């Protein structure tokens, strides 16, 4: 699903050159739920931005769904992002002027779906997160947990191949965080590949694997037993470990 090989990302200013990722290697298989942890400034978000085609990189190769997406122009990257990737952010990132329905509609607008198709998909997505009744509410009229569920609906409405979540529970209290995590687990069980950046080791443990990034490199790789037991993919997991470290 997602494979990065020897990826190097440098941020430059007039005075400083920061190596955000160096010789970065990672492979995520279809249907996996991967947690990415690491200290602040380690390169987690940079990795997520590159994975989400929001940023380019200097060296290396990135294969998404089997296709090399390392050097594509903005139009193609935008199209791929729209069709194959769903984003969930720590701050929800809903558009405050638009109601819930229109927020979920945003990715579909750039997809060129007909009005009826968009309406059907939006209603389904809002049903799925239990917010169909709030479709005409503004984000400010919802709780944090509800807003994140709207963001999940928005991420899923275009039926992407995988989901990138950046601290999805970072702004939520523990109860709401648990609800959101339950939801992500359910989504993953339905076949969605998820890559989630988190600081919380408890949340990371709910993923199949935990990748730790330090100084722009993958330094630790942990496969949780629950994943090995439940999927019986131990061989596959071992191969992944061998490839990525």
């Amino acid at each position, binding site marked *: 699903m997602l494979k990065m090989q020897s990826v190097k990302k440098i941020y430059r200013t007039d005075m400083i050159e920061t190596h955000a990722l160096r010789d970065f290697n990672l492979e995520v298989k279809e249907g996996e739920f991967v947690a990415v942890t690491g200290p602040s400034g380690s390169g987690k978000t940079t990795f997520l*931005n590159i994975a989400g085609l929001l940023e380019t990189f200097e060296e290396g190769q990135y294969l998404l769904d089997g296709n090399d997406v390392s050097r594509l122009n903005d139009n193609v990257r935008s199209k791929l*992002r*729209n069709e194959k990737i769903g984003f969930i952010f720590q701050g929800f990132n809903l558009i405050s*002027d638009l109601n819930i329905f229109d927020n979920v509609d*945003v990715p579909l607008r*750039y997809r060129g779906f007909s009005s009826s198709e968009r309406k059907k998909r939006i209603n389904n997505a809002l049903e799925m997160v239990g917010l169909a009744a709030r479709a005409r509410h503004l984000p400010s009229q919802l709780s944090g947990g509800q807003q994140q569920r709207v963001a999940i609906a928005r991420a899923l409405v275009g039926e992407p191949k995988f989901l990138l979540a950046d601290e999805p529970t970072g702004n939520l209290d523990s109860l709401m965080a648990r609800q959101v995590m339950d939801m992500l687990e359910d989504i993953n069980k339905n076949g969605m590949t998820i890559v989630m950046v988190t600081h919380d080791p408890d949340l990371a443990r709910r993923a199949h694997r935990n990748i730790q990034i330090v100084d722009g490199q993958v330094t630790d790789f942990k496969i949780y037993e629950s994943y090995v037991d439940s999927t019986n993919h131990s061989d596959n997991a071992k191969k992944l470990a061998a490839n990525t470290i």
Partner: protein
Amino acid sequence: MWKYYLRLSLYSLRKTPVLSLLMVLAIATGIAANLTILTMHSVVSSNPLEHKNDRLFAVQLNAWDPDREYFALNAIPPQVTYQDAKALYDANVADEVVVMRKAGVTIQHPESADLPSTYATRMTTRDFFSMFDVQFIYGGPWSKNADESPENVVVISEGMNNKFFKGANSLGQALLLDGEVFTVVGVVSERWQLVPNVYDLNNRPFEAAPDAYLPFFFSAAKPYQSWGNMQGWSDKEIKTHADFLQGEDIWIQAWVSLNSVEKRQEFTQFLENYISTQKEQGRFKRSPGYQLNTPQEWLNINNVVSKDNKQLLMLSFVFLMICLVNSTVLMFAKFLRKAPEAGIRRALGASRHSIFFQHLTEAFIVGIAGAFLGLLLSLGGLAAVRALYNNYENVAVFNGFTVAAAILLALAATLFSGFLPAWRISHAAPAQYLKTR
């Protein structure tokens, strides 16, 4: 997608009403000032006889003072003497020939008890009406005979017809001109108005069309009050009207229509022969002896578009630019505040293109609103000019050009004030705003 962009733009503009209003006002003020000046300039600089520019000619004859050249324009007198005007007419060489003057004549309805008023009239030969495309609502020009042996016939304006005859067909009706009975033979439509008055630029180039027209050669018999410019250089004593007619004073405008190259050559030959004959009589000692000017050349020679007009136009564009720069700055501020939203849209699949056009649409709405308001303000501006300067009544007028200019200025304003902010926002790194939001 455009409908979606339009909806988003309206949301966005509604969200910041004061800022939106300021942007619209900045554009409107610039466009209003520019449109007012541009409209007037377009009228002032137009040539209403463009379609006849290849065959109409203002005739200049240089019978001026042998010791000093004529003091203005192209150093050749812009008007001709009566004796030269008569010679031009009598030669019968040109396809059409018009000799004319502006005169003040008292006109009165014979049955009216009101005191007579003096009106601006044009004493002219009949070819005036065809040469300058005069439109009639009743009747037409007088006959050629009425030109040569002046008959008491008059063509009046629609305004005068409304005043004296309440708009009814007045052909055959009588009017008193300086106390003499004249018969109405034509009524000129009020729609007819050359702006500028190419045919007589010696007087105010933008004044209204005459109230009445009567045969030119009445000038020989009656000293109607001259309302036009009259200049002379000779110190020869003038005792009688006949002396005046034979004198060197210039007070008559002369135009000819020469519809072919041959005709033009023939007329040129006539002029050369005429001047040669006159030289033998001690006249026409200056060179060149004559000049024929197309309507456009005549407008240029007479500086109808003055240096002040051009500078004013330039200033109005500078003012517009300043207003647009202000609007651009406001637009920048607004769009940059919306950068996080653009970042979200980019993350959700919007291309730079989409973000650019979404914001350009918003700029376009501001531009259109600014242009519309500017158009309304410019109508006020034109009305103010008309109220302040009565000789600009025909210049400061709303016309098709004003609307076309408003549309073009709206597009220019959109591109100028919206392009850069829209481009900037569409090229912002989306990741930067997703984390910081």
